């Protein structure tokens, strides 16, 4: 494999060094009262909802949703806030008990109205006073709203409604259903704001997954798939049509999912992201493509790009693209010269930029969040143009975080894999760290595996609760093991034809590097992971007994059964060279890479977790591991959460998971008693 490090250096040397504005000041005033974060502290920490920060068209006002932890409802409640860019305190705008649904906050083009979702319907909120009023009264829940450029119309996606016959069947519980064939297609609609008249734009036996309206409002680019499930996304194609739905034509023809289409300012081209190479072969790092709306083959914009594209939009000039890019342990903005096929890095830092940002051409700005070690997602802006940019922080939601809590120091760890390839991870220091002492270590393995762990708090903070672990004196290592994104195609493609190749050695050598550095006590090692991370936990358990205790959530134990059970096989096709049910199927590859094959070797006390409604990695995968360990006499428990899917949502479930894990970790790795944190009384 080509040296990742060489490529990294090459890119970085081309980057203009960047100094961030804002954020300073607090660090100097460290008070002695900094306390370790508890699970409740972490769960109650207000956060700015991902994708919610929206800048007004004139660039003067920011709107966003802030979370509040509601223990009665057992979930986060989101309320709407505004913040003047010029300064001043943030102002809360909504107060209802149920709050606002995240994911659909939009400014009207005239900047006078905010659109958001409540109870599945679109609501208009006048900025100059007065209460919100409902816009849609659709028969089904709506999502993904977008204003027409003139502000007269709002587009949205909505599922087809149930029929009277279906409702009657449901009422009498005549509810045997056809698996994989029972779904509601989702269509594009529009509503005229002044009259409330709704019109269906797309029809037929397909689903609109995503769409975007052109700058002049005349065209719409969209991704349509034959069915709405995630597992059918790869069968979807990119389309373009007039905004009334006429003259629809398909732009792509492949078996890869096209993500986040964006129309060029003149409407002549569409950019999209896809996990494929220039020959449309799957299982490559997410690449940037451009296709003409007049037809023709999509073109890979930046050949041999080392990193993975997270999000991209056209710059106003129509010749460059601004993108955020996954670089392994961090993510940065790049400017892409479309004709030259060159990428120029705009930002750099120990941080993650979630790919949920918005470009506001009328304000000349991009508004985004930065997740960094001491600020878990304040809002920043950069200019939409220019090759040298200086991010400006707009919100101050995390000013007191470092003052109040002993949050962990974070740094990049680096080591060599068994084959000499450089592997990275994020290392989190224990709160009471003192040089020369060794500490217990929790290794956390991310899902995906086409993902990467980065600086900051990361997604699912109540699932991994890193600051709580470091508060209890653990090091936490989150390694970007082979198969992770951000380190080039060869790194990602290590999973092809067998899945586990360098993954396990990458993890163990990372552990060894920390022991060699004198940081970690080799007798107090803990392993945890979720989804693909759980799968790798299961695998590691069969290979080593160095971990004193482990936790595996929604992991895969048996690839043959998983292949039939999961709702999404599309990205697994390359892992084992075909389905397990075709003629001359590669069973050996499936079986030899199944952790259950070697389960008799497991000695590590292990907790398993699974959601009862998980269709991605159904609970039976965890049942296989659990019952095997139980029958082998290895201490084990399997915790099942009712109603939960692949990602658990209910706070009370997450709290029980974390409490159980901490009890086991403390018992088996630290020989300490753990006192459970109780859910606050509502």
């Amino acid at each position, binding site marked *: 494999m080509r040296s990742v490090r060489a490529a990294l250096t090459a890119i970085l040397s081309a980057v203009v060094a960047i100094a961030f504005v804002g954020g300073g000041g607090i660090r100097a005033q460290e008070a002695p009262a900094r306390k370790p974060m508890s699970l409740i502290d972490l769960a109650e920490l207000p956060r700015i909802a991902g994708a919610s920060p929206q800048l007004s068209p004139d660039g003067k006002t920011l709107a966003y949703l802030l979370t509040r932890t509601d223990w009665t409802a*057992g979930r986060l409640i989101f309320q709407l806030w505004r913040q003047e860019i010029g300064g001043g305190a943030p102002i809360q705008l909504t107060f209802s008990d149920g709050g606002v649904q995240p994911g659909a906050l939009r400014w009207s083009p005239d900047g006078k109205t905010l659109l958001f979702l409540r109870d599945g319907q679109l609501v208009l909120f006048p900025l100059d006073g007065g209460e919100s009023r409902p816009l849609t009264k*659709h*028969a089904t829940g709506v999502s993904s709203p977008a204003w027409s450029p003139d502000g007269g119309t709002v587009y949205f996606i909505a599922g087809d*409604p149930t*029929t*009277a*016959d279906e409702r*009657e069947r449901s009422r*009498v*519980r*005549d*509810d*045997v*259903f*056809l*698996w*994989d*064939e029972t779904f509601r297609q989702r269509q594009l609609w529009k509503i005229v704001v002044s009259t409330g008249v*709704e019109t*269906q734009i797309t029809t037929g036996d397909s689903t609109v997954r995503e769409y975007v309206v052109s700058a002049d409002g005349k065209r719409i680019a969209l991704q349509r798939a034959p069915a709405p499930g995630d597992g059918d996304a790869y069968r979807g194609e990119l389309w373009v049509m007039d905004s009334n739905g006429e003259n629809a034509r398909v732009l792509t023809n492949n078996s890869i999912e096209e993500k986040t289409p964006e129309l060029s300012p003149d409407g002549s081209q569409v950019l999209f992201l896809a996990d494929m190479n220039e020959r449309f072969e799957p299982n490559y790092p997410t690449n940037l493509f451009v296709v003409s709306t007049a037809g023709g083959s999509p073109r890979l914009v930046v050949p041999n790009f080392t990193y993975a594209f997270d999000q991209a939009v056209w710059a106003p000039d129509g010749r460059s693209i601004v993108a955020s890019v996954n670089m392994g342990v961090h993510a940065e903005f790049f400017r892409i010269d479309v004709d030259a096929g060159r990428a120029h890095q705009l930002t750099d830092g120990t941080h993650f930029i979630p790919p949920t940002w918005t470009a506001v051409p009328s304000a000349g700005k991009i508004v985004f969040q930065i997740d960094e070690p001491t600020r878990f997602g304040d809002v920043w802006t950069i200019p939409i143009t220019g090759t040298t940019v200086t991010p400006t922080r707009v919100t101050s939601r995390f000013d007191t975080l470092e003052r109040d809590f002993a949050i962990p120091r974070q740094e990049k760890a680096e080591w060599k894999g068994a084959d000499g390839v450089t592997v990275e991870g994020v290392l989190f220091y224990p709160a009471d760290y003192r040089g020369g002492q060794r500490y217990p270590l929790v290794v956390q393995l991310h899902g995906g595996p086409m993902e990467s762990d980065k600086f900051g708090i990361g997604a699912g903070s109540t699932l991994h609760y890193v600051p709580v672990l470091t508060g209890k004196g653990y090091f936490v290592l989150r390694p970007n093991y082979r198969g992770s994104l951000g380190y080039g195609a060869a790194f990602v493609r290590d999973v092809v034809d067998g899945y586990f190749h360098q993954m396990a050695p990458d993890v163990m050598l990372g552990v060894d590097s920390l022991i060699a550095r004198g940081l970690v006590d080799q007798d107090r090692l803990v392993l945890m992971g979720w989804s693909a991370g759980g799968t790798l936990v299961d695998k590691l358990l069969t290979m080593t007994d160095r971990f004193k205790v482990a936790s595996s959530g929604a992991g895969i134990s*048996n690839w*043959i*059964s998983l*292949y*039939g*059970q999961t709702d999404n096989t599309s990205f697994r096709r390359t892992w084992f060279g075909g*389905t*397990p*049910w*075709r*003629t*001359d*199927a590669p*069973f050996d590859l499936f*079986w030899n890479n199944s952790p*259950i*094959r070697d389960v*008799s*070797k497991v000695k590590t006390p292990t907790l398993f977790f699974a959601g009862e409604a998980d269709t991605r990695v*159904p609970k*039976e995968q965890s*049942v*296989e591991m*659990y*019952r*095997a360990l139980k*029958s*082998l006499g290895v201490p084990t*428990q*399997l*915790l*099942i*959460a*009712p109603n939960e899917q692949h990602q658990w949502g*209910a706070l*009370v*479930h997450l709290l*029980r*998971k974390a409490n159980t894990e901490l009890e086991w970790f403390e018992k088996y790795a630290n020989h300490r008693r753990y006192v459970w944190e109780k*859910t606050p009384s509502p």
Partner: protein
Amino acid sequence: MTTSSWRLTLAAAIVVLGATAGGQTQTPRPMGIVDLLDIPRLSDPQRSPDGKQVLYTRADADWKSGRHISHIWRAPIDGGQPVQLTSGSDGEGETGPRWSPDGKTIAFTAKRGDNEFAQIFLLPADGGEARQLTTHPSAVSELTWAPDGSSLFFKAPDAKTADEKAREKARDDVYLYDENYKQTHVWRVAIASKAESRITDGDFSVTNYELSHDGRKMTYLRAPTPLLGDGDKSEVWVSSADGTNAVQVTRNTVQETGPAISPDNATVLFVSGSNAKFESYYNGRLFVAPAAGGPARVIVGENDPLDVNRAIWSKDGQSIYFLANLGVHEEIFVVPAAGGKPRQITTGKHSLSGLSVSTSPDSFTFIAANSHSAGEVWTMAATETSPKQVTHVFDYLGRDIKLGQQEAIQWKGADGVTVEGIVTYPVDYVAGRKYPLAVMTHGGPQAADKYSVGSMAYEIQVLAGRGYVCLQPNYRGSTGYGDAFLRDMVGHYFQNAHLDVLAGVDELIRRGVADPDRMVKMGWSAGGHMTNKVITVTDRFKAAAAGAGVAQWMSMYAQSDIRSYRTPWFGGTPWQKDAPIEAYWNNSPLKDVAKVKTPTLFFVGEKDPRVPMPQSLEMYRALKSNGVPTHLYVAPREPHGWGELRHQLSKLNAEIDWFEKYATHQPFTPERAPGDEKKESKPTTDHQQ
């Protein structure tokens, strides 16, 4: 119906049925799907202490609630109309009504009014309303009167703790898999004071118990948990009736069932599917052991090919009565308690269940099902030679509904071993004509198909009504044909089993009954495993339907709530060192799924713990991806056997539609639930614009 003129031996009844089906004044119709689902089911017949009446439970389809509702009935044994004693809207008696020793009171369980759990109710036998006896904090079951009538014993799981209730309220409901059970124990309630007292206690479950005849002793099965998968870890215990002086009688790794103490309290009998050395996976054997503890020995089954199901002491303790499965039929036998040659008491083309023995003289009360009855109540004194029919619930079958004739046939398996099965001929069968064939394989596989009217899983008579001949082969692995026959599966599962099925098909073709171009294959549970296997070895079937069948034994081993009887099939667990993975994989239908060409439907309950849904998913998605016509029907809330009427109706409509479409090309109109006929089906969507 009624009168003593119906006193027929069961064998003779079969002959009469032939005549009945032949001609009646009313025009009988073929059996429809709703007709099948509307067939009542009787269970748990109990003779009154004076011997003159029988209590039983009758379940009827209730389309309004969408399920079967049970009520308690009483029938005079010498003729006269049965009387329905209870009529609560949610039904009663699912765990069996019991006469008080003086015959004046009937105890039953029901959930009525504000009850969160089923409670005991007492009903005066000579009239009046039932009154609630218990207010137990969990569901009670398995009632037994103390011989003096002063108290009732019952079984109940331990109640939820305050902390558990608080967690439930807060929806703090993550639970520990396989550990979220409540141990089940025996309790006693005094009739006069309603005071409840605990009889057994500890970190174990009583899965089954029985009082001694004098009420001083108790024998029970003690298991580490109430989970089905721990059944092989249960043991027979004997204690005083107050729970003290508990003595462990057995120490082995097999499942015992139905322990009972001899009238002199000296000996305990039990049944187990194991050999004399307590190795598992054999036909059922009758064992006896000293009640004070000591080695158990086999009384029946070791040297005779009888599959013992349930055994009961004679009142003098000199003999033991038992039910034995003989393949296509089942009979009552008696054997000297000291051992000796068993003697067969009943003979017939029937399947018996719910056997109880009352004095005096010793008399049997039981349910007998056959080709034209889902099981009437019969009685018979041990000294008599022919039983007496008490109920006539199923006289309408054959009179109002045409039934296909049933007979047992034999053929040779691939290795020359004789295999038996039940053939049901189409209604209005004409010899010499060839008919479409439906091959149905039973579940278990430790079971055997017998004469019957069919069930939701096996709609024999509905298909017979549509012109199909049905074959139900007792393929290798079935019980009632000796240990070698049963143990053909040991080491591999599919050795002769599927070949026996195909040889049976060839036999019906050879006899000119079955049309080889119009054959379908179906089955549920192990019958689904067989269906999945058969479609990988042949494309002779034009259509297939597999309910709750296995795809892959490795994952199935872990997923199912029971493993003990699967271990012998493959020679170990798939998790042990040097696990016999080849045996697991080579016998997995999924391994050869690339060869399947037969259009196949799959059915599974969303809450099936036995053969969980992922098994059906694996088969369905494989066929789908390989371009074979297929659908997977999933029923919400359903366990391994589907219980809701509308789910059953959906299954039968879909299955028959599939068979007619691919095998016979006959038109089929799906049946609608009673009461739905008037509803207009509106396929149009009603968009709110």
